[in-house]
């Protein structure tokens, strides 16, 4: 393992992440290559002359042999060049990065409210183990995990926006008006986060029960420390760790839910971008945004693993 185990571990995870992203890139390249029809022809539409198609083919590099195309794509991506968007001629990366903050805001909103609700719920369920609170939290957690987020999104839209008219239904709010933007964030983040309240509550409950049995907690009890102090400052601190990993994996799933939430609430963001670009056959935009989200997802997973590794030495040695 070397002199510095945490560094070796970090390096290993990083290499794995790069390999995974490379595999993803290869798959995406194969995908573009396999799409039936000439991308240049598709981009220009049926009324384009052969000369126009030919010139776009040259501009897109489609006249080169496959390995040259592959190399261009591959080396381009590492330099941050994801190609040119077909409709407006702007760089794909710029377009994607414009939309990313909206999705990140949505995910951040979903994480904050589901953590704020899920941790106390799981904690209470663990302390009152077997009681009615525990049972109710258990059943509700399973239920909100099971129901797909897009159904929740549509029902939230129907109830709170269409019927009751309490909250706005469409868009992300006026740029610059923070209150309006937050108002527009409520329903989508409700839909994205609801299942996560259940996940987090269950996870915190399970690890809390485990930690409360641990010997250092017993020792603290034997020393006569107040029960509240034992629960909240000794046990919860450790019981929260698995939640960090869970959230690391969770960001990827939240991306999936975010796609639906963005479409249902007509909210700008990376999910709506991919969806719209599939409908308009804007393939460079599709592959570019899929690649950026995948890289983002892999990266978040690495960070979650490293945080856990730093907090809990057992994980490092287990992988070393």
């Amino acid at each position: 393992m070397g002199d510095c185990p945490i560094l070796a571990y970090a390096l290993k995870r990083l290499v794995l992440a790069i390999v995974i992203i490379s595999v993803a890139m290869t798959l995406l390249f194969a995908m573009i290559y396999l799409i039936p029809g000439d991308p240049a022809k598709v981009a220009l539409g049926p009324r384009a002359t052969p000369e126009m198609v030919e010139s776009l083919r040259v501009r897109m590099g489609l006249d080169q042999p496959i390995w040259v195309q592959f190399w261009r794509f591959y080396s381009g991506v590492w330099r941050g060049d994801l190609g040119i968007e077909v409709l407006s001629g702007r760089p794909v990366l710029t377009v994607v990065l414009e939309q990313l903050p909206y999705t990140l805001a949505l995910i951040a909103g979903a994480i904050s409210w589901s953590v704020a609700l899920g941790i106390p719920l799981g904690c209470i369920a663990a302390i009152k183990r077997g009681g009615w609170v525990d049972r109710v939290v258990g059943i509700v957690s399973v239920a909100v995990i099971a129901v797909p987020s897009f159904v929740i999104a549509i029902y939230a839209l129907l109830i709170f926006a269409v019927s009751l008219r309490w909250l706005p239904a469409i868009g992300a709010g006026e740029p610059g008006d923070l209150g309006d933007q937050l108002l527009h964030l409520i329903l989508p983040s409700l839909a994205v986060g609801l299942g996560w309240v259940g996940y987090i509550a269950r996870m915190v409950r399970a690890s809390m029960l485990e930690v409360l049995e641990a010997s250092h907690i017993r020792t603290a009890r034997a020393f006569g420390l107040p029960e509240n102090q034992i629960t909240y400052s000794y046990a919860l601190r450790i019981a929260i760790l698995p939640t960090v990993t869970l959230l690391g994996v969770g960001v990827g799933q939240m991306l999936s839910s975010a796609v639906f939430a963005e479409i249902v609430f007509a909210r700008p963001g990376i999910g709506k971008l991919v969806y719209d670009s599939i409908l308009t056959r804007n393939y460079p935009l599709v592959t570019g945004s899929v690649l950026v989200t995948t890289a983002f997802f892999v990266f978040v997973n690495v960070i979650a693993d490293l945080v856990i590794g730093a907090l809990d030495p057992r994980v490092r040695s287990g992988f070393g």
Partner: protein
Amino acid sequence: MLREPLGVLGISLVLLVVLGAVFADFLASADPSKISPRNRFSSPGFEHLAGTDQLGRDLFSRVLHGGQIALAVALGSTAVSLLIGMVLGLIAGYGPRWLDNLLILVFDAMKSFPTVMLALALVTLFGPSLTAVVVVVILVNVPGYARIIRTQTIALKSAEYVTAAQSMGASTARVLRVHILPNVIGPLLILASMDIPVVIAIEAGMSFLGLGVRPPTPSWGAILNDGFANIRESYWIVVAGGIPIILTTLGFTFLGETLRDVFDPRLKGR
């Protein structure tokens, strides 16, 4: 397991959905795809139990027939993913080390695509279809199943009765089939039953986006999409599309959780 109230609720919900789908033609006499312009947006009532949609199609009939699609896709694609996951898991667990490492890398890479992104990418390639839905389900499920089988296989590989069988000259195929497979299949089936709601959500979600089942085939996701497009005209289309999805996912989840707790408490907290 019938002593668990949640398990009973789960079984009842699953039975309700299965019976509804199996006897769809019998229970709902209306043709699920018959367009009737005069009956557009009829609210639920005696003639149309769940109302009609923007084309005047009977929603009750569409919901029941949509159940056939949902269950067929869920059971069919889960079975295929189980089979592929089992084979790959056995190969990774029992085969040479380099192959194991390679397969693990492939599984990790497959899991590193966010599901919806994977679905969107695949639909770009193949076009919207039921096949695309099945392929997405397989790609999402196989890595998990294969990993479980692999871990169990590695644990069993050095078990005494397995080495004993090997030393008596049993072929690799026989060892895998007779000695290892029966021991790994139980937990796998429980996990698969717990994944059914996820598969149903994928089918409904893709059909909702117009990337799955093609119209006019009834699918819960497609009904939800019709309702979403007309949400200001009528609430009942959205209700008709969403309620069966909620009931089915809840039913299978409660059932799966109970099965797991009763038969294999070790899997708890997965």
